[in-house]
């Protein structure tokens, strides 16, 4: 019979010396390891503290309250460079989330599409999908971002002044996309209780209906009644909350017509001016009226290929219904040297041409090309509008903005005074250059606050040289999003294909034998099973997409990494910024992973 051997005892029964005892060795090894790690950390701490002592750079987080001064073009919350660093950082985090969440949704769609295409019965589609995957996943994401940003989305779309109007009021140009958007107005708070009630009713009714259906033991859909009830309550609430004409106490508009901009705000001290300590009213609907006004422009336009064309002129986007009468003339007849003028259409564009055959109309070949008419380019054009009226919804910071009209006669007079003076041939809008102090005559502009419901529809427009109103997606954002989506989709496509192929063939055959159509076989039998295989690797791709959004500096998009690196360079606070960067990314990854793993748990096959 074998004797039992206790730990710490050899077979012959004598005690093992401690240096051969596995437990003791393990303990000692850990001790030595910890000592080494501690030593390294101490060394690190000493070096860093002496280096910091020498350079006097900030080593704590106190600098976060200082003024940031970082311009971020696209912020989901109110932000100006006057805000502190902490706010800039928050904007960065929100921008990271904005690009990665939208990216995850879009890349899933595209990835599944390509993955399914790879298994299509159609040879052509299969080949296209295969080429898509083989090329895009083997090209660096950095190259793809540069491609979309600098080679496609910046140079190719129309310039901002010539923004293309897509159906649905969407504007598209080299400054990105802008589309109409519903914003909560100051009435929204009155509607909020109704919404909450609707939500509660929805949940309760849903539970009740589900129970009823369960008890009645018959098939049925528990959704229609609860949804209908919730929508009715919401709609009634909307009407009630929007009824009457209750504007907030002390609301006022400070509008400077010669700059074309103003602010809607609560006038706390009643002086009619917007002071720094007064709070702006976001998303207030206003109507701006001008009885008469002028805008100037010149005919130099730079085309998409970088060529200068003298013939075409443009004014800021003005719709035909916004004006009573409109007229375009030369500012200085004598400078125009016999050229003729044609005001083509809304949005306010037209062309100047040389009427060589004297028929009073434009014919091909009469346009003023570069080189064809040397010295031309100083001719300014004047747009005079009567009864201009535009509905403007204030921005998040209470700002409203229209084209900067001058009072009638002002521009012509100024031009005459300056005749012969040098003018910058590349300035398209002289109104932007504010006249010498006090010279600008104020224009009589009326700004009315419009009644609005809890939600207000804001439409984008181009008053000067960028979008105002609506929701704007900058070129940077679009380029980054597009590159991330297209790149990640090539990985997701492979995951989807492998997942679908892993579903046993018998499942498909059985479904077909039961008489299910191709579509139903796929959507009801194959895909749900494939999803369980697909999801875990998909989650890691989603995390990759989120982390890859840090390539944003290549598209000049102000997300977490870009903001942090600017902060680190401005303040020199390397240690705090390192901690912030790592903690933020690890946290974002962790939150993503936890949520997605919860989803995974839910759809996972329940095994015994």
């Amino acid at each position, binding site marked *: 019979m074998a004797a039992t051997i206790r730990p710490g005892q050899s077979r012959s029964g004598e005690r093992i010396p401690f240096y051969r005892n596995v437990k003791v060795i393990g303990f000692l090894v850990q001790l030595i*390891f910890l000592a080494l790690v501690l030593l390294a950390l101490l060394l690190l701490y000493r070096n*860093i503290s002496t280096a910091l002592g020498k350079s006097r750079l900030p080593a704590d987080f106190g600098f976060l309250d200082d003024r940031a001064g970082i311009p971020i073009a696209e912020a989901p919350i109110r932000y100006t460079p006057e805000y502190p660093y902490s706010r800039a950082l928050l904007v960065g985090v929100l921008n990271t989330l904005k690009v990665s969440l939208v990216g995850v949704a879009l890349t899933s769609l595209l990835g599944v599409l390509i993955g399914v295409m790879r298994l299509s019965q159609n040879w052509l589609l299969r080949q296209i999908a295969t080429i898509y995957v083989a090329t895009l996943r083997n*090209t660096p994401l*950095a190259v793809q971002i540069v491609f979309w940003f*600098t080679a496609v989305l910046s*140079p190719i779309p129309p310039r901002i002044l010539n923004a293309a109007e897509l159906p649905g009021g969407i504007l598209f140009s080299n400054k990105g996309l802008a589309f109409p958007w519903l914003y909560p107005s100051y009435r929204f708070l009155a509607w909020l209780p109704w919404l909450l009630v609707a939500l509660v009713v929805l949940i309760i009714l849903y539970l009740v209906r589900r129970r009823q259906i369960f008890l009645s033991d018959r098939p049925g859909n528990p959704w229609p009644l609860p949804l209908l009830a919730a929508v009715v309550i919401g709609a009634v609430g909307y009407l009630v909350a929007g009824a009457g004409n209750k504007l907030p106490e002390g609301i006022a508009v400070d509008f400077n017509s010669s700059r074309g901009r103003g602010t809607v705000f609560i006038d706390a001290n009643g002086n009619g001016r917007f002071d720094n300590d007064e709070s702006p009213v976001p998303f207030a609907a206003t109507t701006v009226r001008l009885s008469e006004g002028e805008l100037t422009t010149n005919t130099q336009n730079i085309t998409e*290929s*970088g060529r200068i064309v003298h013939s075409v002129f443009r004014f800021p986007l003005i719709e035909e219904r916004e004006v009573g009468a409109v007229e375009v003339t030369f500012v200085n007849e004598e400078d125009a040297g016999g050229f003729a003028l044609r005001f083509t259409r809304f949005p306010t564009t037209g062309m100047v041409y040389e009427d060589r055959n004297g028929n009073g109309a434009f014919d091909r070949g009469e346009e003023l090309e570069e080189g064809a008419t040397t010295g031309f380019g100083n001719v300014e054009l004047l747009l005079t509008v009567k009864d201009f009226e535009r509905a403007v919804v204030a921005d998040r910071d209470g700002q409203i903005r229209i084209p900067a009209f001058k009072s009638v006669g002002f521009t012509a007079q100024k031009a005459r005074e300056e005749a012969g003076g040098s003018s910058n041939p590349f300035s398209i809008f002289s109104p932007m250059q504010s006249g010498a102090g006090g010279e600008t005559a104020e224009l009589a502009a009326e700004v009315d606050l419009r009644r609005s419901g809890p939600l207000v529809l804001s439409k984008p427009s181009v008053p000067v040289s960028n979008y105002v109103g609506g929701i704007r997606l900058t070129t940077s954002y679009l380029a980054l999003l597009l590159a991330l989506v297209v790149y990640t989709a090539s990985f997701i496509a492979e995951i989807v294909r492998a997942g679908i192929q892993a579903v046993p063939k018998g499942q498909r055959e059985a479904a077909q034998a039961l008489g299910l159509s191709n579509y139903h076989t796929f959507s009801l039998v194959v895909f749900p099973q494939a999803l369980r295989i697909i999801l875990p690797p998909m989650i890691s791709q989603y995390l990759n997409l989120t982390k890859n959004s840090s390539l944003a500096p290549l598209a000049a998009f102000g997300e977490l990494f870009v903001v942090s690196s600017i902060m680190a360079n401005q303040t020199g606070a390397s240690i705090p910024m390192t901690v912030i960067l*790592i903690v933020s990314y690890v946290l974002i990854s962790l939150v993503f992973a936890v949520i997605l793993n919860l989803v995974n748990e839910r759809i996972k096959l329940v095994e015994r």
Partner: protein
Amino acid sequence: MALTRKPPKAQTGVLMWLRRNLFSSPANGILTIVTSVILAGAVINLLRWTLFAASWERVWVNLRLFAVFRYPVEQLWRPMVILAVIMGLLGASVGVARHGSSRILRDVYRNILGLVLALTLVALVFWESVRWLWLMVSLTSLAGYLLGAVRPRVARALPWLWAISFPVGLLLLYGVTPGSGFLPIVKGHDWGGFMLTLILTTGLIPSFPLGVALALGRRSKLPAIKYFCIGFIEIIRGAPLITWLFIASLLLPLILDTDPTNLPAVLRAYVAITLFSAAYMAENVRGGLQAVPIGQEEAARALGLSGWQTTRLIVLPQALRAVIPAIVGQAIALFKDTSLVFIVGLNDFFNVAKDIVANQPESLRIPGGIQLELSLFLALTYWFFAYRMSTASRQLERQLGVGER
């Protein structure tokens, strides 16, 4: 009575193929036609642009910048000698294994050799300064193959030669004496172009032992070591490479308490890349370790092997063999990700195109710039190497898979 039947419909031939693959149903037919019209339009436009509208001259003129950036012309023999030695070693390895099963390595060697020969031809005609250097590279690669094939005994020396070539190559590239003596030092900020991209990709080599150590540490039964490794791996993997490159350039001078100018950006980027790949390598290796059946370890212990011997002789060889495709995949990812070193101001292949060539006055004078040409050139070059590696990885996967079953 003979039963007469019509012959079955032909299942082969061009028409049947078309019918089966493109026009199997009306919907499918419409899809095919619509897709091919769009595709044809895209391809024609792309071809027209590539051949007629695009200005490739700026790419052609700047090829040296793309290849080695500002590495001095009179010192160009150094990178070329390294290339020649590597090609020679590769040739010898393939030559030795001629009769073996490593068809994949041979195919890769053939592809690279083809590229080298093509470049040699171009060099002989157009590039005066490196004409003979390219010829040397070609000859060395062929000579290596012949040597390996004729004298299989060199196989014994090959691993050592490969091992030495890495540090010696870096030393040769950097130089020995400051100023203009024997092998003058070429500072890191003059390194760049595709050469730098390849150098940074070799960060995978030092990351391999680190990764194996981390993977073993993560599986260790000693909690201190285990949790240290888990923490290291997960924190590194939690944040993207670009942040680590940035952090390395901020922190390394502080940690080592030296002036930032003493630490060339190349070195900082290299450290960041190595540590970053080590974390990912560790996870790959861990996958391999988990794939080794527990019985292997138990059998080894039963034979009386010590814990370390078991790991070294039984577990690791099997685990590492299983993760070769994953490591090739990681190499592809790293090769692509080296483009991120633009953030620390390094002029690798990507940054030379994006920053230097795109902003040359001559490039800016071209209407519309040459961004499109440059990004296509970049994409194509990266793609060529990454795609070749990925096909090799797939072949490897298949080969190893067959071996297992």
